[in-house]
């Protein structure tokens, strides 16, 4: 298969120098430490050294812009399972235990089975890919993820001909996710567990990444350890974190944000500067680390690869 090269790829890797130094110290630190699966809880701003994850960089998936600092990536998160503030996930990350962890793959597949996450990690050679991530709130980052195309998993589990959608479910555990516990204003919280979904062709798209790490190490808890999905041409909330179940279904899944506010969040959630959120514009975004806002790109800059999947669709109606 011919891999379409994005025209504005540079052959040289642009890595922030402080980041480069950070990576070295993390590798050294992690090697010196016992290889504990989940990093210790550190309240300090620098992220704890986590187990390194070897991966070959896939040159076909690079971004012209510099990657966002690791500290920002791991301390500015929307992960309401921990809490609704951006610093809650990093602060409370220690409550999540990413091992032992299983992922149930079932629904319309040839052989439904529950896999250990380490088993699933071996279903494909791990690659490092640099993707843009655009949050529906209007900020964005550039992150080097580590994983393999979800298509590899899908082909292995053999969905039946009736399967038309893939549904991802995040862990629901009141012990590990303090944000899921009922509080005073429970009427205003999300319906747990967090459910997201993709059309089968979207799930098979080479960009869709079953992700196990970032920046050369395993996923920090606040970024969705131990396994998540990353769909770079859609708003960030589509990229479900800490997945425990992947189910193949014939009907379009009802996703959590769609249930919470159906006029604001739909199923497709494609990044689209021409379709505003009812309460704010999506024409511009703030790239974390930059001062001025920048124009949002159609499909987050991945239009070449994905626009054909939506040919003929009214994207204002299918938001």
């Amino acid at each position, binding site marked *: 298969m011919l891999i379409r090269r994005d025209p504005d790829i540079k052959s040289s890797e642009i890595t922030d120098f402080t980041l480069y130094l950070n990576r070295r110290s993390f590798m050294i630190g992690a090697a010196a430490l016992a290889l504990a699966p989940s990093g210790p809880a550190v309240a300090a701003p620098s992220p704890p050294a986590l187990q390194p994850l070897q991966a070959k960089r896939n040159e076909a998936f690079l971004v012209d812009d510099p990657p966002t600092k690791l500290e920002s990536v791991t301390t*500015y998160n929307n992960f309401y399972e921990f809490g*609704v503030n951006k610093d809650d996930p990093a602060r409370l990350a220690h409550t999540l235990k990413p091992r032992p962890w299983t992922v149930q793959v079932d629904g319309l597949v040839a052989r439904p089975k529950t896999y250990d996450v380490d088993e699933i990690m071996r279903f494909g050679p791990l690659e490092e890919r640099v993707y843009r991530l655009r949050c529906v709130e209007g900020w964005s980052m550039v992150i080097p993820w580590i994983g393999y195309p979800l298509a590899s998993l899908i082909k292995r589990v053999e969905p039946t001909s009736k399967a038309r959608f893939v549904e991802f479910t995040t862990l629901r555990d009141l012990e590990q996710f303090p944000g899921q516990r009922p509080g005073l204003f429970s009427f205003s*919280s999300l319906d747990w567990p967090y459910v997201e979904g993709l059309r089968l062709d979207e799930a098979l798209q080479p960009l869709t990444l079953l992700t196990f790490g970032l920046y050369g190490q395993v996923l920090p808890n606040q970024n969705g350890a131990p396994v998540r999905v990353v769909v770079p041409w859609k708003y960030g909330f589509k990229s479900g974190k800490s997945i425990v179940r992947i189910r193949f279904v014939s009907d379009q899944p009802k996703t959590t944000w769609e249930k919470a506010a159906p*006029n604001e969040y739909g199923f497709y959630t494609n990044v689209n500067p021409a379709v505003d959120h009812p309460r704010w514009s999506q024409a511009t975004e703030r790239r*974390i680390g930059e001062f001025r806002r920048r124009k949002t790109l159609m499909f987050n800059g991945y239009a070449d690869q994905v626009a054909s999947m939506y040919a003929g669709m009214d994207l204002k109606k299918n938001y």
Partner: protein
Amino acid sequence: MWGAALFPLALLLCKFATDDLGVNPIDYVTRTLGDWTLRILLASLSMTPLRLLFGISWQMTLRRLLGLFAFFYASLHFSVWIVLDHFFDWPQMIADIFKRPYITVGMAALTLLVPLAATSTTRMVKRLGGANWRRLHKLVYAIGVLGVLHYLWLAKKGVNDPYWYAVALGILLSIRLGDWTRRFAKRRLQRAAASKREGYQRIQRVLLFVLLLIGLTAGIVPPAGGQALRLGRPAPEIAGAPWINSPPLTLSWLKGRVVLVEFWTHG
């Protein structure tokens, strides 16, 4: 009091100097300034309730100072929005003011603060005359409501802070309402026979309180038809609830059947 009111700004400047504004600094600064605007505004609105509840009155002189500081922080909040968030993109901003309800009410609250700030001096009180001045400054109640709605309508589902402000505002306004109703009823009592009126007075107070609650609750529902649950609309399908001694039931299955709904709790 000046020190206390300027403290949040000093803290922000300190954080700016030590680069401690977080990952998304412009967002953090805007939100912090907005938070303090609301808090100082609510503080100003709580001076009179303190007198009504506890009879103390030394704090009444603070109302003007707090009101002006609320205006100060609101202006900073607005300036940051213009300069740092949108960098003078006037067409986008003006469009936003009309298109985004939360910005509309925010802009309205700020606009209403201007005449209040302009007429805050003792000289202006004399120029307008006491009664007129008091009538103008009753606008602060509307400003409070608009400010809380601004935050409520901005926040995503799951963010609870705005509800706390709404509760605080509700309490402060209902204390005033209770007092106003009492004085109103008292005046009428002085003109007519007593006992029958007492009953009506109580009903009136409750009715007005309920109206206020409904008004505030309406603020909880975002304007763009937002949440899945709305008064008067068909109920959403039951999902995710734990079922005891029954297979999961759905509303669509129950349609056409007689259903008894019992609300109970324990503890």
